[in-house]
């Protein structure tokens, strides 16, 4: 599966640098799938909304750059692959049962992913995960019933290894005045 992917970046009036050197790795503590290159999957509106809610509120401008990602091989897909969700649950259970983590605050998902990477048993180059917001749209199957379909999902892709995944060009596509 090849998808369009978007990265939201601060506009420092350096579009050429962004397009040649980007995408850029996230190494913040909030990188909840571990360090990597974070993208919004397919729907550029989420990338723009992220810019509006993060950069703009701090008085900064932002751009959105687009590329394509090849997720055909080695994607740990927590959105579209139910087995991968079960895999994640099982590795967490294994870690819990091993009782080796002394501090409960350290028992978090990014730590176990990083541990598996360090031990060379996490074979995936990308992680795809829904990053839902509380206001996510729920399309109810029937009025008054509890069942609903989650639509317009906000999906993130964390690229751990670019080789074989990132398909250039990496081009700034927003705001429109940067389009020539």
């Amino acid at each position, binding site marked *: 599966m090849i998808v369009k992917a978007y990265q939201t970046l601060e506009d420092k009036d350096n579009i050429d640098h962004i397009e040649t050197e980007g995408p850029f790795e996230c190494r913040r503590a909030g990188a909840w799938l571990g360090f990597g290159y974070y993208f919004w999957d397919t729907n550029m509106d989420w990338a723009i909304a992220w810019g509006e809610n993060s950069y703009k509120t701090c008085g900064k401008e932002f751009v959105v750059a687009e590329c394509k990602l090849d997720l055909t091989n080695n994607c740990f897909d927590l959105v579209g692959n139910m087995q991968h969700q079960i895999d994640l649950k099982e590795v967490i259970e294994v870690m819990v049962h*091993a009782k*080796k983590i002394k501090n409960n605050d350290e028992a978090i998902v990014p730590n176990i992913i990083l541990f598996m990477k360090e031990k060379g048993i996490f074979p995936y180059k990308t992680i795809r995960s829904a990053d839902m917001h509380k206001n996510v749209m729920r399309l109810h199957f029937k009025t008054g*019933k509890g069942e609903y379909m989650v639509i317009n999902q906000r999906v993130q892709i964390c690229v751990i290894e670019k080789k074989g995944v990132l398909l250039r060009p990496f081009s700034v596509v927003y705001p429109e005045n940067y389009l020539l």
Partner: protein
Amino acid sequence: MKSELANKLKDILDNMSQEQFDQEWSPITALKLDGPSFADAIEYFSVSIDKMGKFELNTDIQNEISLTTNYLAAS
């Protein structure tokens, strides 16, 4: 039967002393990453009866189709 990933992790942990684990875990926690807890992840990835919606069988339809199928229709 656990997944291949879980089995590999179990093998590693089974063959690691606590001291060795602490040494390798320490640089990871030093990064002070944020993310969902194991407890939340296990809860949300698990299926339980109370997470299921309650359905009422549509007996009108059921009476019509019960001769030919085992499928239970819900309204």
